């Protein structure tokens, strides 16, 4: 089974180590825990898969940190990348 790595329990995305096709079930590894996720689209290895639904404008969380916000509604199993996520770009006041 293809697998993906989640880093922090709060993460709503995981990094695929193997590529997946639409409909494939990948095993998500988080420490000792394992859980399945069904991919909704083909996703290349190294790219991210959503573990949960993320509403438009909601935070995308990896490392337990916000890495950006959803620019479209993201469903569990979707490919998460520049087409549906934007960074915050600036933190300067």
């Amino acid at each position, binding site marked *: 089974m293809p697998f993906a790595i989640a880093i922090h329990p709060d993460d709503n995305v995981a*990094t695929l*180590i193997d590529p997946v096709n639409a409909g494939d079930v990948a095993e998500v590894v988080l420490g000792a825990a394992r859980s399945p996720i069904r991919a909704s689209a083909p996703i290349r290895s*190294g790219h991210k898969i959503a573990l949960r639904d993320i509403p438009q404008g909601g935070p995308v969380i*990896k490392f337990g940190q916000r890495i950006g916000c959803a620019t479209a509604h993201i469903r569990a199993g979707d490919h998460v990348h520049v087409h549906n996520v934007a960074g915050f770009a600036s933190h300067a006041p």
Partner: protein
Amino acid sequence: MTFLGYPRARGAPGIRNTVAVIAVELAVNPLAARIADEVRGAVPILHKQGIGHLAQDQDRIVRVLRGWAQSPNVGAALFVDIGYGMLPVDRVLDGLDAAGKPVSVIDVERLGGLYRALEEGVRLASAMAQDLSEQRREPCPVSDLTVALKCAGSDTLSALTANPACGAAVDRLVDAGGAVLLCETPEMIGAEHLLAARAATPEVARQIEALVVGLERDIQALGVDIRGAEPVPANLEAGLTTLEEKSLGAIIKGGTRPIQGVLDYGQPPLRPGLHLMDTPAGTDRVFSAAAAAGAHLVVGTAGAGPTNRTPVMMGTDTVFPSLPLLKVTSSTRYAQDSPAAADVDAGPIARGEKSVDEVGQEIFQRILRTASGRLTVAEVLGRIGTQEIATRHALF
């Protein structure tokens, strides 16, 4: 714990013992290169600066040139000067602490032109090389080592394999009393709160916030958005989506220990432990600063395979002659891709075939062996070209 280094009269021992033929400015690059070419054991350190600098950039370049000669890996330094330049060699020599190492200057103007300067340069550098050839490595404490960090071609595996393993290695080095320089200010944007939380003192935390917010303000003042420049196309292709994601993955290579200070570009650390150094992200510019700050070697974590088939790293085409680069690759596929791809492969971490700590120990051991004289792939296969000193403002 020890390694075999070249003891200096003062300060850290060297892990290499090169005669550095340092061009003071770009006009003398060909001469410095020719002198070094004639002398076995000599290396040319060339760069492109020399005209059109505002005072603060002049100060920085002068500090970097001084730092290159002071670098512990340099056993003797020969500055090559045009004689009437914008970067006066007297300013470089003023305050230079060579720890008893020989330092000479040749002045093309005073010597009466290129060919007389070439002859004099070869005379001086060859005497230096012969003298250095009698020096021998001796056991030195690991606490004498300073290691700088760089990542290149970052992909999403970098944050899962190469960077955590590098972090585990540098934690060991810090625990042994060594110094570590985490560079690349642009790749701290979005992760500064985590770095500030690890500051050894409230003052250092303020410096970390000021460093990152200051860079963001500079970018805003230009009226541009850093998105579009970062993450770079190879990062995006490999699955990295935002600068925050890249930064949060990049800082992992700095390990977990408290941050003892924030250093200006090319400024040596005054105490052991983990430090941040203000540099751009460009590989050549990081190496120039690391060498000037007295780093013994750079651990470079390399992702995105095809762009890292070269002996050096993405973003540079040349090795820094007195600064070994130790490459750690994020994926076994990349490690096997080219003989030049990696010194240590962190790829097996992805599938649980090795632990982060195991590969961290491998990297730490490889740091010690490199320090004792083992050549890295970049040293064996890389070419010496022209270095980059990062400046803030260019007039011409």
